[in-house]
């Protein structure tokens, strides 16, 4: 144990690695992304411009990034976990200090060619850092408060910064993803029960700290009809669009709600609505099923992995992806308040697309290097 050097038990050739890549998973991602292309093509009234063509380009870039990330040795990602976390954290601070205003919240860094959203990368970085932290943990350590506290700080530090932006949705998602990491890493169950009770108890306190528009969103969610022309408008119109789709949908490019602009932000947050309006229950369930298969695929990769880092990383990232899907779909169906979360891979948006593809690159890397031995710190 004194030897801290990294022991590489095996080296794979390039071809072996390519062979180990989960092409099935990539195919699934392509299908889901194609749903997005079709929906964006429809959203632009039957035009690749302005959304579908760019989204395809971004998916191409994302796919390249995915393959590069997947082919890099998982042990390198293991070593880079903390540095990446630190870089992400610094970016969050930068965005807080000099980020410019977009959509009423400071979330972007304009790098000239791309608008970078550090919180997207932070979600991956937090999972990587936690995976590394819990990699060598013993069952005893997992029950030790002193061992778990630093891990909790790894989550709460970026959450604090994201809350300052302010971005309640992303903060909650980081917390949920972190909590999932704690759970699958083996943290005691009472921790979650206690955490849940504490969270419930803190709701009235947290309410005081919410911004006015956030309060309004929650209130509107609880009673959308109270303000049908104001904040409840989005939910109401989205429900009308979904419901009017019926079983078979109105047909491709024939969604009246989306094409007559009754549906707000149809190319981003409400893209699922557009899809399900035009393709109905059939299309909606098809897309949800695809998502479900991707979740299962990620979980299967995680379980097969022979090192804890890979298991935690693959599962954590897949779970993160599923959280996105759940929150977006639940939102457009009026099950949770409007939080402004895109549907990953489908919604129009560069950073989100890239983040998802990189995350799946890491998942696949965990599959390629599933039998590698990783050091214990």
């Amino acid at each position, binding site marked *: 144990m004194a030897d801290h050097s990294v022991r590489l038990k095996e080296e794979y050739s390039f071809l072996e690695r390519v062979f180990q890549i989960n092409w099935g998973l990539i195919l699934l991602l392509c299908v889901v992304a194609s749903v997005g292309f079709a929906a964006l093509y429809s959203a632009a009234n039957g035009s690749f411009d302005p959304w579908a063509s760019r989204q395809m380009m971004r998916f191409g870039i994302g796919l390249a990034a995915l393959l590069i990330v997947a082919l890099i040795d998982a042990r390198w990602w293991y070593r880079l976990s903390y540095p990446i976390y630190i870089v992400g954290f610094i970016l969050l601070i930068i965005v807080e200090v000099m980020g410019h205003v977009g959509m009423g919240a400071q979330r972007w860094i304009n790098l000239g060619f791309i608008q970078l959203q550090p919180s997207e990368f932070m979600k991956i970085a937090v999972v990587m850092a936690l995976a590394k932290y819990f990699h060598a943990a*013993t*069952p005893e350590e997992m029950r030790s408060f002193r061992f778990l506290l630093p891990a909790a700080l790894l989550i709460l530090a970026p959450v604090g910064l994201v809350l300052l932006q302010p971005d309640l949705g992303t903060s909650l998602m980081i917390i949920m993803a972190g909590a*999932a990491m704690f*759970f*699958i*890493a*083996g943290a005691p169950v009472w921790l979650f029960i206690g955490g849940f009770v504490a969270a419930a108890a803190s709701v009235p306190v947290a309410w005081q700290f919410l911004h006015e528009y956030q309060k309004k969103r929650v209130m509107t969610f609880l009673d959308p009809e109270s303000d*049908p*022309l104001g904040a409840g*408008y989005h939910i109401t*119109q989205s*429900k*009308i*669009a*979904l*419901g*009017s*789709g*019926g*079983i078979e949908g109105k047909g491709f490019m024939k969604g*009246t*709600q989306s094409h*007559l*602009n*009754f549906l707000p932000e149809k190319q981003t947050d409400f893209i699922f609505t557009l899809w*399900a309006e035009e393709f*109905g*229950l059939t299309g*909606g*369930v098809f897309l*949800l099923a695809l*998502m*479900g298969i991707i*979740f*299962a695929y990620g*979980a299967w990769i*995680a*379980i097969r992995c*022979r090192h*804890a880092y890979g*298991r*935690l990383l693959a*599962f954590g990232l897949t*779970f993160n992806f*599923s959280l996105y899907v*759940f929150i977006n*779909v*639940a939102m457009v*169906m009026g*099950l949770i308040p409007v939080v402004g979360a895109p549907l990953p891979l489908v919604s129009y948006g560069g950073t989100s697309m890239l983040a998802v593809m990189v995350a799946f690159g890491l998942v696949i890397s965990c599959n390629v290097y599933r039998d590698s031995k990783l050091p214990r710190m």
Partner: protein
Amino acid sequence: MIEKDNERAKQFTRRAFVMGALQGGILCVLGGRLAWLQIAQGTRYKTLAENNRINIKMLAPSRGEIVDRFGVPLAVNQQNFRVLITPEQTDDLKKALKKLHQIVELEEDTVTKILKQAEKSAAFVPLEVKDNLNWDQVAKIEVNLPDLPGLSIDVGELRSYPFADSTAHIIGYVGAVNKKELADNKEDPVLKLPGYKIGKTGIEKALDGDLRGSAGNVEMEVNVLGREVRELKRDDGSVGNRVVLSIDAELQRYTQERLAQTRSASAVIMDVHTGAVYALSSHPGFDPNLFTRGISEERWQELLYDPAFPLNNKAIAGQYPPGSTFKMVTALALLEAGAVNSRTTAFCPGHYELGRDRFHCWKRSGHGWVNIISALAESCDTFFYKYSTDIGIDKIADMARRLGLDQKYDFFLPEERPGLMPDKGWKERYIGQKWQPGETVVASIGQGYIQATPLQLAVMTSRLVNGGRAVKPWIVGMDGKHAMDKHNWEDLGIAKEHLDLVKRGMNAVMLSKNGTARASQIPVEGMEMGGKTGTAQVKRITKAERRAGVKNEDLEWRLRHHALFVGYAPYTNPRYACAVVVEHGGGGSAAAAPVARDLLQMAQTRDPASTQIVSSADEGFDILRQPPPKKPSFFKVNSNG
């Protein structure tokens, strides 16, 4: 170490399954929610989505034409050109209006009104700037349209009456819908259209439901801002039914012109066999086109306060004592009751005494010996005074009613009045006194309480000369599926020889050397007429006046006698009956008979009875009296709702 690793891996797998189950559960919830929205609530949301996207606009149906018996249009829809402005297509609304002002004059307050409207409505909604443009103005705007962005010309419909004054009382006119009319016509949404006009008087009112047609609608797809994206569906509705009247437009026009030679008069020409009304005029009239295009307050006041009541249709609503034209009723009643026969005579010394009362004949010197024919021809009052008390008022009243007085015919002219035929029961009911024999004497020559309309007098004349059939007047060609000109009128059950005697008396009015209207005979062989003059007192002649020899012409116009005449032609085989009342015209033979002569001559010259009335169905319109089909009520949920 390895064991511990295995143990952790197993724990990971267990917890991963728990998480997986959780994810699967959430997916099921989402799928379920989607199914609930799309299947269970699908219909509701489909309706909401349709309401969002579809804006239903109603289209006003074209109002049905009204034509005369030959198909000559009496009420038509004229194109009404309007200039509209769409604010968003102009660079500057104010400047655009200024530019338009250089071409077509606009009033100051129209400009301010439009500017105010533009602030309130969406920029893509066209606003009406001016309507009723004439061709010249339309052409000028049309030519300048390239320099006038945002302006457009739109064609609407305006009700127009080609015969203006002469048919005004029959056709009536249309006007804006008032609150009461809106409440009475709840099931027809078309009345709510801005600018929609509804029949206000005459046939336009009586047959409004048939003329109206059914509203069409356009379904427009609108976006979230309400801008129209495209037309989805168009139903032009159906044009209102064509209404064919029994009127002969040319005869009607002639009648109106002929009456215009008097100050105030009315006349009816009808078919003695079919009951078709060929002309029905009331002078003075008014131009109904003024009402559809907007009438000035000044002109309106003039019409309203004219002592000759131009707005009233006096041919059906004017009620006058029939005077001597009533003598045929008395004569027939006497004959039917057996009180007189063709050989019965009476001596007329110029008056008749009943008890202490003296009743004067119009001829102070008296007629000498008269029988029933000469009594009619010379209009001797004494003959009728003398025998009327033998049969009493009730028998006279009964004959009057059989001949068509004291009733309404309800033939689609809403103004019609019933007149009045008094009898014993009536006096007790309404005045609370017993009938006096002297009143029978007065009634026998058509004075006293008796009142009749010119229409009723024309009907009476028709029944006298058509063989005693209960003909009724009609003006609309079809009643249900039933063609009115084919109607078989029932027999009144009056003895033919009695009718013949009365007719001979009326012939003698025009033919015998002492006939009261001998001077007014039609000078065309084969067209000669028969008839009866009448003079109705407006003011009772006092004894003092009689002694002073005050003449009717010396009285103020409104106190002078009404002049009446009823006639028929040709007298050999009557076809046309005519009744004329010249208000305050003086004596019937001088003032009314010449008018009736001209009218009957014209009627025979045009001879409308020889041509069959055009069918109302020949242009695809089916049944005239059928109400328009009911449309579903139009609803529109707020597009943002």
